[in-house]
C-alpha cells in the first residue's frame, strides 16, 4: 500500500478496541504495516494481531522478537493499552488495585518505551539508521485532577513525566527517536461501558459530552488523527510534548 508511512512498521498496544483500533486503521491507511498487540483479538480489525500483555516483560521480549523477525524493522510504537481500574477513590483504593492499574498503565508504558527503543535503534537494509516515534496515551487525568479513580490518575501522571524523560534521553543519545504524550478528554469507547450500563449509551454520551466546552465526546478517530500526526514525520520537531485533545476541557472556564 502506498502512503506517507509506506514501508514502516507500527505496534499499537490495545489496538483491538477504541482509540487503539482507530489509530491502527489510520496508520494502516497511510501504508504502515500494523501489529495489533492486545489481550483480545478484534476479529475484523486492522493489521496483524499478536497476543500481548503490556504488563509482562516476557511478552514484550517475544513481541519485539516476532516483529523484528517477521517485519525486519520497527518505526512506530503507540503505547495505548490501558484500563480505568474502576471508580475507587483515595479512600477506597486497595493496594492490590493500585498495583494492578500501575502494572498496565504505568509499567506497561515504561516497558513499551524500553522495548520500542531497542527495536527502533536497529537498522537494516531498508532502514539505514536509528529512527522512530513513540506515542504514549496519557489522559487529561494526567494533567488535572478529578475526584474519580485514584490509581488511574496517578498512573497517567507517571506516563506524562516518563514520556518527557524518554524524549530527552533519546535526544541526548541522538537516536532520532521522538516521544510524546497524548491527553484525550472523553472518547466514546468501551472503557466507558460501566457508565453506559448505568445511564444508557446515548444519554451517557450526551451527559459526558456536555462537560466538554465543544459540546460532545470525541470519537476514537479524533484521537487516531492525533496519533497519526505524532507517528509521522509531519511532527518531526515535536518531542517531549503534551498533546491535548479534549474539546477544550482543560482550557478554562465557560460562561455560566
Amino acid at each position: 500500500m502506498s502512503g506517507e508511512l509506506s514501508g514502516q512498521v507500527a505496534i499499537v498496544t490495545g489496538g483491538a478496541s477504541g482509540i487503539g483500533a482507530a489509530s491502527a486503521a489510520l496508520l494502516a491507511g497511510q501504508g504502515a504495516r500494523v501489529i495489533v498487540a492486545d489481550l483480545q483479538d478484534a476479529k475484523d480489525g486492522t493489521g496483524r494481531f499478536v497476543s500481548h500483555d503490556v504488563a509482562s516483560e516476557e511478552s514484550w521480549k517475544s513481541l519485539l522478537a516476532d516483529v523484528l523477525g517477521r517485519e525486519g524493522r520497527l518505526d512506530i510504537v503507540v503505547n495505548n493499552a490501558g484500563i480505568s481500574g474502576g471508580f475507587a477513590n483515595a479512600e477506597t483504593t486497595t493496594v492490590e488495585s493500585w498495583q494492578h492499574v500501575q502494572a498496565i498503565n504505568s509499567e506497561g508504558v515504561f516497558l513499551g518505551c524500553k522495548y520500542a527503543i531497542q527495536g527502533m535503534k536497529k537498522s537494516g537494509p531498508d532502514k539505514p539508521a536509528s529512527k522512530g516515534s513513540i506515542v504514549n496515551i496519557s489522559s487529561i487525568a494526567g494533567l488535572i485532577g478529578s475526584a474519580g479513580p485514584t490509581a488511574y490518575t496517578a498512573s497517567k501522571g507517571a506516563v506524562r513525566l516518563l514520556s518527557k524523560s524518554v524524549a530527552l534521553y533519546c535526544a541526548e543519545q541522538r537516536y532520532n527517536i521522538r516521544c510524546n504524550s497524548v491527553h484525550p478528554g472523553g472518547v466514546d469507547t468501551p472503557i466507558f461501558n460501566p457508565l453506559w450500563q448505568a445511564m444508557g449509551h446515548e444519554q451517557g454520551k450526551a451527559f459526558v459530552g456536555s462537560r466538554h466546552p465543544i459540546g460532545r465526546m470525541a470519537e476514537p478517530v479524533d484521537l487516531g488523527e492525533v496519533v497519526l500526526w505524532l507517528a509521522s514525520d509531519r511532527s518531526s520537531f515535536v518531542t517531549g510534548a503534551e498533546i491535548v485533545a479534549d474539546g477544550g476541557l482543560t482550557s478554562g472556564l465557560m460562561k455560566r
Partner: protein
Amino acid sequence: MPRLENKVVLLSGGASGIGAESARLVVREGGKAVLADRDEAKGRTLAAELGDAALFVPLDVTQEAGWQSAVAASVERFGGLHGLLNAAGVGVRNSIEDCTLAEYRRVNDINALGTFLGCKTAIPALKQSGGGSIVNISSVLGLRGASYAMAYCASKGAVRTLTKNVALHCAQMKYNIRCNSVHPGYIDTPMIAPRLSQTVGNRSGRQDLEELHPLGRLGRPEEVANMILFLLSDESTFSTGSEFVCDGGLTA
C-alpha cells in the same frame, strides 16, 4: 502566636533532610511532630532532640499496616491528627534504557504508592480531628522531565496528579482536608550528597547542580520546610490541589 499551635503533624521521611527540617519547624511553631521513617537511628535521635513535642515511629511507607500503626500512634500520643507530610522518598538515577522493571517498581512503590497510602490512612484521622492539611513532596522532576531520572520522574508525576485527586475527593466529601504538592529544586540534603561529590567535566557536582538554578545555588532544607509550614498552617486555607514550586527559578 505560634503558627501550628497544638496541631499534630505526621511526617514520613521525618528523620532526614526536608522531613527533618519540617519536623523542627513544626515543633518550633507549637505543634507536635510524629517522625515516621525507616531510618530508626536517625529518627530516634531527632525525636529525642525535639523532646516531648515529638515522637518517633518506625515506618516503611510501602506497607499499609505500618501507616495504620503510625496514624494510631499519633492519635494515641497527641490526641488527634491535623497534618500529614509525605516526605519519604528515594532519588534514583536511571534512564529508560538502563532501568529494570524491578527498579521502576521499587521507586514508584516508595515515592508514589507510599504517598498514596499516607493520604489514604490519614484521611479518616484528619476528618475525626475536624480537618487538616496534607502536603506531598513531588519535585521539579514532577513538572519537567530529566533524561537521567526516568523512574523518579514517573513517580513524581504520579504524586503530582495523585495530590489533585486527593484534594478534589476531600473537597467533594466536605472533609475540610486540603492537599497540595511541593516541588523542590535541588536541595542540599543527604539524598543528593553522592551527586555533589562527583565531578562533572571540569566542575564539581555541586557547581554543576548550582548552575541549574538561576539563583546560582542549591536550596536549603529549611527553605522548603518554610513552604511546607505555610501549607500545614491555617494561613493557606484556600489552597488545595495546587503545585507549590521552591526551586530557585529552575523551572522559570
